[in-house]
């Protein structure tokens, strides 16, 4: 087979070019007006324009001229980092080009996503070894963070929304984290024993899995809605419950619904994990003279652990997103900003809710990956489970 060109970086080039040819950001006088759309070249000026063109040439050189694989990957990684810096630089430049107005701001437009996407593609394509990724991440984020923190990013729309409600933002952030954390913990406390029971006894197992399966299918907004009426009725009839803060709206129905949602992945993965323990391992344990209890704690549980942890991972990542919907029934959290933004047709406010939401989801996912690698016995086969 003839040697092929490295096509993936060319795709990144294409994405990056979109940032320069399509509208990158809108300069607005306030939150409501449409504003002036500018593309990357209009924003870049001679300095950053040259940097962009040089980066593109660098990628092309790597694709068509370089033979050495590891050097070529280094070049791609560098180009990816530069793409990320350029994103921040262009936003700041846009901020400096604002002329005035009541609350002038820079809102990202469709082309804005081209450069970060190109950066992701290039770095993903060049990755090898974990520690290098960490260095890359710091190199990538530090200058961008310094640039934005140095007061030069204050015109960017999301920062404007943020500085208008700093206190509220952190309160809601904490409410959000507490709500989804409590839901995942209660689901784990309920779900893992349920899963163990279900795998011991088929008569319990079938209805339990059918129930959690059905709950997962119900749209989150519908489940919140369905829980409101009965909880409101309960709180009306029993003053004690009302005194405990259990009402039709607020944290109580949200916590119940979120816990129910988180049950499915946990129960299902516990059952699957215990079912995946090979008979020969159990046989060996019995042959060593282990009691039922020893067999469970020393053989079955450690071997089922990767599945159980993967279930917890899925449940937590889902819970982060579902908690946002809980804001609709007055539970608070980042969803407040999203739904307020939707209600006021204010995209910048939506972004203020969505960006931390996505960051939390990715961080939770990565931390579980890290813990799974640490806690699972290294001799176990992790095939089929992403870690």
């Amino acid at each position, binding site marked *: 087979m003839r040697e092929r060109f490295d096509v993936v970086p060319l795709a990144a080039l294409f994405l990056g070019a979109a940032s320069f040819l399509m509208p990158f950001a809108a300069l607005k006088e306030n939150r409501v007006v449409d504003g002036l759309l500018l593309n990357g070249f209009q924003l870049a000026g001679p300095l950053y324009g040259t940097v962009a063109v040089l980066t593109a040439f660098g990628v092309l050189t790597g694709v068509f001229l370089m033979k050495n694989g590891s050097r070529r990957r280094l070049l791609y990684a560098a180009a990816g980092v530069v793409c990320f810096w350029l994103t921040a630089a262009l936003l700041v430049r846009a901020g400096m080009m604002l002329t005035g107005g009541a609350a002038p701001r820079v*809102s990202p437009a469709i082309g804005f996503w081209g450069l970060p996407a190109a950066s992701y593609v290039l770095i993903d*394509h060049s990755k090898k070894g974990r520690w290098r990724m960490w260095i890359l991440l710091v190199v990538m984020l530090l200058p961008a963070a310094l640039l934005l923190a140095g007061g030069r990013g204050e015109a960017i729309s999301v920062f404007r929304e943020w500085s208008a409600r700093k206190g509220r933002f952190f309160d809601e952030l904490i409410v959000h984290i507490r709500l989804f954390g409590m839901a995942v913990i209660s689901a784990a406390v309920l779900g893992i024993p349920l899963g163990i029971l279900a795998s011991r006894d088929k008569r319990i197992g079938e209805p339990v899995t059918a129930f959690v399966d059905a709950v997962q299918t119900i*749209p989150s907004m*519908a489940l919140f*809605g369905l829980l409101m009426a009965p909880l409101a009725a309960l709180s009306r009839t029993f003053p004690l419950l009302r005194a405990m803060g259990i009402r039709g709206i607020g944290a109580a129905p949200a916590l119940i619904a979120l816990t129910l949602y988180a049950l499915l992945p946990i129960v299902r993965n516990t059952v699957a994990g215990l079912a995946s323990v090979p008979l020969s391992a159990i046989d060996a344990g019995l042959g060593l003279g282990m009691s039922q209890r020893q067999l469970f704690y020393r053989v079955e549980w450690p071997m089922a652990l990767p599945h159980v942890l993967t279930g917890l991972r899925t449940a937590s990542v889902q819970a982060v*997103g579902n908690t946002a919907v809980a804001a609709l029934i007055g539970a608070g959290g980042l969803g407040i900003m999203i739904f307020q933004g939707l209600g006021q047709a204010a995209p910048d406010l939506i972004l203020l809710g969505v960006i931390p939401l*996505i960051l939390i*989801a990715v961080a939770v996912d990565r931390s579980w990956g890290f813990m799974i690698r640490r806690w699972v016995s290294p001799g176990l086969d992790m095939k089929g489970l992403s870690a």
Partner: protein
Amino acid sequence: MKRLIGPVLGLASMAVLFIPGILDPVLRFLFPGAGEWVFPRASLLSLAAMHLLISLTAGATAAVIGITLGIAATRPAGRAFLPLIRDASSLAQTLPPAAVLALAIPFLGFGFEPVLLALVLYSVLPVLNNTLTGLETLPEPVLEAARGMGMSRLQVLMRVELPLALPVIGTGIRTSVVINVGTATIGALAGAGGLGSPIVAGLIRDNPAWVFQGAMASALLALMLNALLKAAEKRLQPANMREV
């Protein structure tokens, strides 16, 4: 007998929900203090039809895109993109669908189209992921045998790879449709209509009866669609791979 319980229950609740003459007294009994009972702006049936239209259109579009991309990434010419697509799609799986919807609205405006587009964007992922898994985990000897019989690449794809991967792909399509039904409920906030509108209206106007009918109807729709697609999935499986 046991197999009939589900469908009968489903049909009975549908009758209660979709025939206003029955729904009204039921709601009056459950929520004596609500003031207004049956959602006045549109009948639940037409809202459900709208809801189905959005979710199924998005599901079908996503299925076509996801399967095409999945096939392309597993052919020799597209293989270079496979690791990238895998990484990107597992990253994208961590994004909450509500966040994707909220993100799409600033760019696409309010109404039916942005919700449709956001749903398609998000629901491509389960289909794509499952298509890749289905095509990548086929036993090599089977493919070897197909090539040895003198099948062309297209024949191997159409007669061996796709039929064998179909159950896994089908599961992906079901997941994406179920997610769509759920996310379309939130889509009511973006003005897309559907069964989310009585919920949203009820929350704003503090009317539990409206919330209840919207929630019941969308829950029922999701459960029934899931059951239907599961049954269809069983049919898709090649006879000798069916579990008894």
